[in-house]
């Protein structure tokens, strides 16, 4: 129960931080989320046991040991989280260098796409014209041939 609560708490704070605009806070949220995930992996691996180090000659069978597989997965996850952390940090730094803050602003291009219908700069040839079909002769055309009437 304690572990489950810790996992839940880490997820809650992690998500809360990730939903903010500051890249730094997003990063911290991600780290917390990573901790929560690692713990979740471990917790779902079953009851705690002895460290899974089996001395030579001893039998590795039975439930005395903790399950090593979630541990190996969590170990991988820790290292990967570290990689992502440094990458996000570099992003935050770059954003600060370029814009003077590390906030994620709204993507203006996304909004522009939504208004393509009203804007005049849309490529006119991209859409077929709405004028009457050229295959229909206009009604006021002279008689198309000189045949008998």
């Amino acid at each position: 129960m304690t572990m489950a609560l810790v996992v839940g708490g880490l997820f809650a704070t992690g998500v809360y931080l990730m939903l903010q605009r500051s890249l730094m806070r997003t990063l911290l949220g991600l780290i917390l989320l990573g901790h929560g995930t690692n713990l979740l992996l471990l917790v779902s691996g079953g009851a705690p046991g002895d460290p899974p180090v089996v001395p030579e000659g001893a039998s590795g069978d039975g439930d005395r040991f903790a399950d090593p597989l979630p541990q190996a997965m969590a170990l991988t996850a820790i290292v990967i989280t570290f990689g992502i952390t440094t990458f996000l940090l570099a992003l935050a730094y770059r954003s600060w260098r370029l814009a003077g803050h590390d906030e994620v602003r709204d993507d203006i291009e996304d909004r522009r796409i939504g208004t393509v219908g009203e804007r005049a700069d849309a490529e006119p040839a991209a859409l077929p014209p709405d004028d009457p079909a050229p295959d229909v002769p206009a009604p006021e055309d002279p008689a198309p041939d000189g045949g008998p009437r």
Partner: protein
Amino acid sequence: MLVLVVAHLVCAAVLPLLPSRTGQAVWLIAAVPPLATFLWAVVWARRVLDGEVLHEGVAWASTLGLRLDFRLDPLALLLTLVVSGIGVLVLAYGAAYGGEDQGRQAGLLTGFAGLMFGLVTADNLFVLYVFWELTTVASFLLIAGRRPSTERRRAAEQSLLTTVAGGLAMLLGLVMLGQAAGTYRISALVADPPGGGVVPAALVLILIGAFTKSAQYPFHSWLPAAMVAPTPVSAYLHAAAMVKAGVYLVARLAPGFADAPVWRPLVLGVGLASMTIGAWHALRENDLKRILAFATVSELGMLIALFGAGTRTAVLGGAVMLLAHALFKSCLFMVTGLIDRTTGTRDLRRLSGLGRRMPVVCGVAVLAAASMAGLPPFIGYVGEDAAFDGYLNDHLPGGAWALLWFTVASGLTVALAARFVWGAFARKPGVPDAGPTPTPYGMLWPAAVPAALGVLLGVWPSLTGRLTEPWADMFHDTAAGHASYHLGIWHGIGFTLLLALLTFAMGAVLHAWRAQVIATQRRLPRPPDGQLVYRRTVRGTVALAVRVTRVTQVGSLPAYLAVVMATVVLLSAGALLVGASPVGSVPLWQSIAEVPPALVVLACALAVALTRQRLAAVLLTGAVGYGVAVLFVVRGAPDLALTQFLVETLTLVVTALMLRRLPARFTPERQPLGARWTRGVIAVAAGAVVTALALVATHARAPSSRRPDYTGRVHETGAENAVNAIIVDFRALDTIGEISVLMITTVGVLSLVRVWGGAAAVPAVREPAAVTSPAARWDAPRERWLPGAGELPGTERSVLLEVVTRALFSSIVVLSLFLLFSGHYGPGGGFAGGLVAGQAFVLRYLVGGHADLGLAAPTNPNRVLGGGLVIAAVVALVPVAFGHAPLSAAVWHLTLPVLGEVHASTSVFFDIGVYLLVVGVILKLLGAASAVASTPERAPAGEGATP
């Protein structure tokens, strides 16, 4: 057959590469593969028509049931002859017609002939579909040309969109049909057709595909629009070949499915409607090519209605008409192109007196048009007579109606054939006569051949019958009461003759009163215009896309993330509610030692979420990490705990180094209160769901759960530490992927940080200046504790730290090596060892600066980084050389003089690779940190804002 298809495609690929000065020769080269196909088909014709079926198959991925099956039966033979024969003629015509980009045109046409050949011989639904769509693409390229005008581009787009949409519907239908039948072989499918269930729906979808391809109402409008293409293209694709694909599919499936409930109403209804409306529409066109295009729509409708009827005589009529149509329509298109080339116009209001100027051309056109009108003794008449007889005597449901429609539409066809000949060649009052022009015989003879063949096959009906009757004989002969119908010109005075005469009379009347016909057409309400429907559909789709984009793409990252998170929460909560077993009673804690670190972790996490201080947030996050590490220890995971401690420390240091440049406080929130509440609610819900998930997962993990017995088999790897064995042995592939990811992120970090100034942004390591002054006092230092630290300004140095660092550095490196090699037996391993060594370098960097780091690790970090990955990869691949699976490891048991018995495993080398890579990553990150440190304070706003 496969060889022939490939020959076409290779030829198509090579031709555009030929230099443009080869000129007309490309057309002759292009004609070789279709000619070979034609001759091959002629050679096989006798045996195939005698009932032998040629089959050829290549297993491509047989475990997936993917086979390239080809099959030559009478229907395929007929179409092969049409496709390759007309192909040769059109290519010969193209040589005289010319135009720009001849290599491309000729190549595409040849490739198209190959695709068409593959399509009609394919014996697998998917192979058929692939050829089907490839012909669509080829058609698109041919219509558009290389530098398309707006008009041609629109026409090409329209043909592509229409036929691809139909093709997708068809694919769905084909899959449904194949699944219902349990086979994708067309021959097997037709021989033993599935029934009931999804089959009617599948047939409707397939027929939609066929109708779009064959330009049937209401999908016809792309074909008249496609007439902007050069005439050889129109003559081949849009008269003889591609549009026949839909007809072919109907003909192919008719033996199996003609009696399915939806088949006949749909096929007869759409086919006869297209036949009538197309011909009616053609009567008011003024462009010769557009007249022919609507005539094509009309005649394709006729073919579909005949083949789809699925009775012997009707199908026989269809087969003859297919042959006839290919002959006369390609001829008429070629004549139109000729007129266009010599006079510069195709508008019949401006053509006059051409018949006298070019009597031979006129004669050829009259022969073809007479065949189109169904006049005796041309092949068109032979086919039409069979068609009349089929509708009359085959006892089709609704046959009387079909006969009535067919007769009316045939009358319209007679009128439009007359309109074409009259429009192209007759003298018209008030229009100046065409001047004298030489007849281009290079363009004339390819047109004359099919016209002559039309006569030949008409006056020699037994040859026509030899070609067409074997396929028609596949159908049940329902003509009760009299002998099987045989092709012929004269069947005595009977009802069919009467009908034929009726159509001639109707055509003559309609042509004589053409002005009134056009006036009537103007007065009548127009049938729904396909062009308009197409345009509205496209515009509507675009408008819908814009509307959807506006709703979904608001451009705000938190909003997107909130949606993602809410989805995760809702989905997993739903799954938990529906599927989870009750948890029962849960102990508050597994051991009391969990509680203190748990409280610390929770408190710190909460504080991180609330603080506004940047540094405080980072430090609190570090505290959370250390708390989690303690929890790992309590849960019996010393490896995890070790790695977590090390990584947390490293993260703290790197973050702090980066933070030196960022403002101390977070940017104040400007979000509305509602958004904050939403965020809080989502966060709390996520926490609650994950808590429940953790409880359920723990509970579900009974001690007896099946799991890979790693602890039981750990000794097979020569190790004792099961976690390490998993990382370097059992699941070493995962580890390779992981270290690659690590390397890539490091490269990403560097490129993000170094973007201002390239490699020069990281200060080069310089040799520290030696102490040279001999006049120094006796107590002046002869040597430095950290040689590189002299580069730092004095205010940043601390003698105490330098002494300690110098003393500790070697010890830490030794410790890291110990961890690396002891990883097999206790906590440790490549990751932990590498991280410890990395900390040693971090220490040197913090105390001695970048220069000292360069002295401590006097190699290029890139080599360490890449070398680690290379070692790991080589260790993974070496076993392959010895015939083992990749990543398998060998264990040696050695007895050494001093050390006693030693186990060695090749996976140690793998771990060394991991170690080196981690060290390299840390060195590179320190390089990035020094790049950050060496950049000046933030540039002035104006300069910094430009990327």
